[in-house]
């Protein structure tokens, strides 16, 4: 991986032929533009070595090429980098370069350091330590850079009171911004809520089936009991050895509503399979979700009592209480939820005798 040179800013390029620089400068403007455009055609983020640039067949000689490159560097259109000790270059967007050209030395220095930290960002204190500027200058410069929309400030998730700076166009890395569930250092409750609902629906579809109330609509005349009924009529007395003359069938207990029951041969989903389902559904855009992120969300849902874990990696829907006749003896009585329970005594202002909640519950006066 190419790394930006630590020597900042605009670094001295080690020229193979130093004298070449002293040669009279012909107009290199059009060639500079051509070289830049040529480089811009490549995939974004490509680095170019001297070999690549000369292969573009724009410069007339090595000396000329180097002059052009130096010019690009001065105009902030190129970024000098190093790959295994060999210098290489990367292009910078024109607008950005234009903004950079307007900066003063301090600003450029700080910008350079921020740029180096990439998506991880750099802590303002670390920035100060590296650049050795005064706090005042640092603050002023950072504010300026922010105003010019060159850098952005993000609060670190790990250290909530640290201001981390990184370039404006970059997305903060997970280390400082947290996983996909966090935005701007805070948990994105709306997103979490939506995805959790989605997951619940997926799991329900996958592991449960809806059984209509009349799933086994057994109406046909029961032959054996019909025989027995006939027999009973004929004999008047039933033989105790025979099956009873009534149909032994218990109708469904709550016949009205369909039931959700566990599917036959159920395969419980895992974090990986659920992640795939969520990504396929297109509910999450612009965000990368890894299996570990999904697992974090699923674990949280287990804590919420929405899911249950089966055998370590698989999840199923939590079994909800179907008939909630009451919670427990304590909380169903007034005492269980009484706001003054701790103040209540055997005697005194607050006691069982004077209790308004008891009065309300029993419909008697206190």
């Amino acid at each position, binding site marked *: 991986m190419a790394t930006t040179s630590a020597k900042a800013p605009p670094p001295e390029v080690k020229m193979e032929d130093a004298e070449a620089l002293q040669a009279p400068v012909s107009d290199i403007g059009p060639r500079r533009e051509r070289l830049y455009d040529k480089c811009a055609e490549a995939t974004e983020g490509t680095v170019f070595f001297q070999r690549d640039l000369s292969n573009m067949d724009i410069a007339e000689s090595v000396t000329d090429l180097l002059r052009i490159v130096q010019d690009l560097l001065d105009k902030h259109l190129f970024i000098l980098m190093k790959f295994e000790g060999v210098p290489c270059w990367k292009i910078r967007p024109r607008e950005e370069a234009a903004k950079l050209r307007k900066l003063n030395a301090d600003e450029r220095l700080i910008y350079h350091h921020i740029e180096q930290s990439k998506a991880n960002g750099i802590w303002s204190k670390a920035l100060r330590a590296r650049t050795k500027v005064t706090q005042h200058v640092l603050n002023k410069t950072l504010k300026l850079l922010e105003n010019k929309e060159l850098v952005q400030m993000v609060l670190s998730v790990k250290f909530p009171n640290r201001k981390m700076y990184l370039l404006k166009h970059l997305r903060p890395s997970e280390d400082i911004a947290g996983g996909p569930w966090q935005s701007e250092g805070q948990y994105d409750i709306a997103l979490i809520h939506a995805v959790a609902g989605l997951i619940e629906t997926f799991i329900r579809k996958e592991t449960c089936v809806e059984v209509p109330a009349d799933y*086994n609509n057994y109406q046909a005349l029961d032959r054996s009991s019909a025989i027995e009924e006939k027999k009973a009529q004929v004999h008047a007395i039933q033989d105790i050895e025979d099956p009873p003359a009534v*149909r032994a069938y218990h109708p469904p207990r709550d016949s009205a509503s369909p039931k959700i029951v566990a599917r036959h041969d159920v395969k419980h989903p895992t974090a990986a399979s659920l992640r795939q389902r969520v990504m396929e559904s297109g509910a999450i855009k612009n965000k990368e979700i890894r299996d570990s992120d999904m697992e974090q969300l699923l674990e949280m849902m287990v804590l919420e009592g929405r899911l249950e874990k089966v055998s370590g990696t698989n999840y199923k829907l*939590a079994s909800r209480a*179907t008939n909630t006749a009451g919670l427990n003896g304590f909380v169903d009585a007034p005492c269980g939820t009484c706001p003054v329970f701790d103040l*209540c005594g055997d005697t005194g202002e607050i006691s069982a005798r004077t209790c308004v909640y008891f009065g309300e519950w029993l419909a008697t006066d206190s």
Partner: protein
Amino acid sequence: MAYAQRDTPVIETLCVHLVEHHCGELAARVFSVLARYGRQTLSSVARASYLNTRQSRMGMSLLVQEDLVFHSSTDPQATYYEINWVNTYGLVRHGPATQLVQARFGKRAAKVLTTIVSMGQASMEELREVYFPTPDEDSEDEGDSGHVNGTHKTNGVTVNGTSATTNGVVNGHATGHMNGVVQNGLTGNAKVNGVNKRRRAEDDTGDEERDHVTEDENKPNSVEELDAIVHHLMLHGWIMQSEENQHLSPGELHVMARNMAIETELSGIAPTGITQETRIDIATLQRKRDIRDAWTRTPEVRTRKRKAADPDFSRSSKRLKAIDGHQRPAARDTDIVVLHAALTVRLNPEKVAVAMRTEELVRLVDQRLGHVPAVIYQIMLRMIEEHLPRCYEPWPDPLPANPEATLDVEMDPRVLVAASDVLKKIDKTVDLLDGLDPSTILSTLRAGTHRVTKENKIHPPIDPAELRDAKPSLITKHIELIANHPFHFVTWHSRAGGSQWRIEFEEIAKAMVQHEIETTISAGPDLESKYGVKLIRALHKKGKLDERGIGNAMMMQTSEIRSVINGLTLRGFIQTQEIPRVERREAKHSLHLIYYDRQRAREKLLHDTYKGMTRIVQRLMFEKERVQTLLEKAERTDVEGNESMYLSQDELDTLKGFKGVEEKLMEQLFRQDELVATLRDYIGPLMSA
């Protein structure tokens, strides 16, 4: 607050109310003195209270009769009395215990049990007297219509405060004898009684069948039947023998057991060194278990041949319990059980807890999985209930050094249930298809004539009466539902009998405790009900966490959780801890951890529940006080039964209103008692939370 001014312990208040309710004011006064001052002699009780010696003796004798105090005479100078908290709290369970027995053994057994619990402890002779009074005594007792009045005869209880003997044991069998039953043998009017027991399938439907035989269906028909019922209840562990060493306080029992252990293990020489101490400790526990197990042992019964005239109730064809490792000869069908007249029995509170646990578990399954699994689970639990003497072992042997070795230990086959056993007992009208996926149902059928339609219906419909072959696998499917619940209500054991299952009560009990704590929290105020359960689950899973850790585990802003943490800490469900990171112990530089200790939360909730029960009892007293005059009027012998004739419409309405309030409060009291059982009785202290 100064120590002297502190609140009276909640359980003490509750128990005093209970004693007052059951034994009257005098006993309650003595009880409260004992509760306040702890272990006392009778004379010091008199001194500490405003009661005179005669009154305190009367009160104490009531407490002794109801078995609410421990008393021992190891000190030859005086007898010390100490409260038996477990039995005293147990007063609240007398009603529910009767109901549990009724559901299992029918109304008559319940009636017999009511008689026994109301008398505290009763000999067979007394019981026979209650139901079948001998004519001459009957005339004396005429006025005392309710012969189940626990206080009407103190049965020779002489509370002798100063002498060496206490004679707390009823029925006058000599104090020194540990086993008065054998000593007394057949005396007096001990008739040779007996009855045939036929084992009913623990259903109360059997009751109705024989109702037409008797006038009062709730009373045993004959002395033979009474004996049979008592014997049956003893075999199932519901009642146990009343013995002298039951009246020893836990401390004295420990000393006794330890002395016995030293006597046998080290021939009376006090142990020295850690090895010997450990050996004695283990032997002491063993001794305690032996003493306790002896209580629930069913005594040898005399039998006689069955006569044609003998009633047919509850013929006992079941094998007797294997005790001492050897099997007793089974009582044959044709034999009739005869119990000794002097056999004294009392309720076994441990068994009540076992039955309460069964009911609670069935209720949970019914709530969470539906009716059919609950029916099946109830059958499974009741089948093994007989072989579970208690919910957990309070005096277990220390864990072996390598726990792996115990894994291979053979399970007692009597506490395993197979699907085929359930099939034998299940009610034929239960719709086994209910609550299953139609595809699952079809997979249990052999023939392929049925199929599942698009709307998830079975076509052609299955005749539930023709499921005979599929029934075992259908039952297994339901049991699997129970097993897959996160509580793991049952655990697969082997393939015997379709599928054989065991029940790991210890793990379930822990889950139940946790469940009750969560339920209580979820009923709390707004935010706590929303996030409280999630918070304690997160803490339970991850251990001690600081605020940020909690935020990450719950995926929420810490600012939102803060108030929830605060509220739960105040209610005592979670604890906080501050660990300084720098020497100066600045709050800013300290770690602030939050953690959840299940045992602490359990104790807190238990305490709160006791308090809630106390308030209910107090409220009931208050409500009663307000209609006191009316109640007195309604309870007059001439008014009782003819209320509509003597009372005005207003009075009738008030009375009805009060009855409703009383019922509501009592119902709630029993439900809180169920919570107490879950929190306290199903599992010992949870050391590693």
